[in-house]
């Protein structure tokens, strides 16, 4: 195995245009963040998909545990009043 020769993994987020959030697009390998951003520009915005790039070291990402899905994500599911479709408005009205 030559596993040791791999470069660190970076998760890449791209803002596709002004007014939008950065969205996770994938990952790549690079020795440092500067190279990661440079590579991300070539790899993930070849067709002009982005105006801003974030590179985050994969080791720095902390995730919720999917097994916690119950306590963490269930409560909002019954707070239907958070969603606009909860409210009835006259059909011909633009709101």
């Amino acid at each position, binding site marked *: 195995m030559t596993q040791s020769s791999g*470069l660190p993994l970076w998760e890449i987020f791209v803002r596709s245009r002004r007014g939008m959030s950065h969205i996770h697009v994938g990952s*790549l*390998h*690079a*020795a440092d963040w*500067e*190279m990661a951003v*440079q*590579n991300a520009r*070539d*790899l993930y915005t*070849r067709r002009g998909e982005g105006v801003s790039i974030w590179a985050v070291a994969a080791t720095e990402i902390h995730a919720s545990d999917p097994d916690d899905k119950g306590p963490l994500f269930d409560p909002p599911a019954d707070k239907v009043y958070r969603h606009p479709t909860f409210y009835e408005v006259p059909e011909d009205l633009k709101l």
Partner: protein
Amino acid sequence: MTDALAATRSRLCDYALALGDDCLILSHRLSEWTGNAPDFEEDVALSNLALDLLGQARGLLTHAGELEGSGRSEDDLAYWRDDLQFRNLILVEQPKGDFAWTVTRNLLFSTYQELLYQELSQSAEPILAGIAAKGALEASYHCEHAALWTARLGDGTAESHQRMEQALMALWPLTGEMFELAPGQAELVSAGLAVDPSLVLEQWQLRVGEKLQDATLSIPRVPQRRCQGRLGFHSEHLGHLLAEMQHLHRSHPDASW
């Protein structure tokens, strides 16, 4: 057309050809990396550089054909001239070498190109100015790529440092040609159509010197070699490159693709 106007157009045509040939030939060398780069990310990056330069070459050759007025297309100019008719720098036709060689050449050439094109984007010749303005943006990105790698290879390991030094020693003597005014171009410069490349020499040395210093490298103390690529006198490498590039096109002279 008056004689004077015809002479200017013919000089501008030569000028556009020389700039276009630089891009075409360097693009060819960079494209040799596609599939062979040190990492997959770099396959993508080097292909991007090659594509940018190919785009510039096509714009410049097409424009040269128009200036010439003989109806020669970008392909006629790329595929039907022999090596003595090419006007590119000796620097860009050198083989692709190792990655240190490629990074070093990119640093030397893209810094030159960015500075030159920034000036040329002010040309009184609008098409040339437009090509140069777009090219300068692309070149500045190429500089960034070259600078990042120059730092990492120069100040990386003993091996990478040594490879960078070797590349610098070999390529530096070929850079003098970049700053020479080709015959017949003085008139274009005084008419505000072309740029005297010697004007950007000082800034080029400064910028390249800084990048090398950041990378624990320095400008080698070696004399410049006499290069005459701009006059059509090339190294032996160009003929082989052209043989490869042109053979299919020339094998089917009446074909379109």
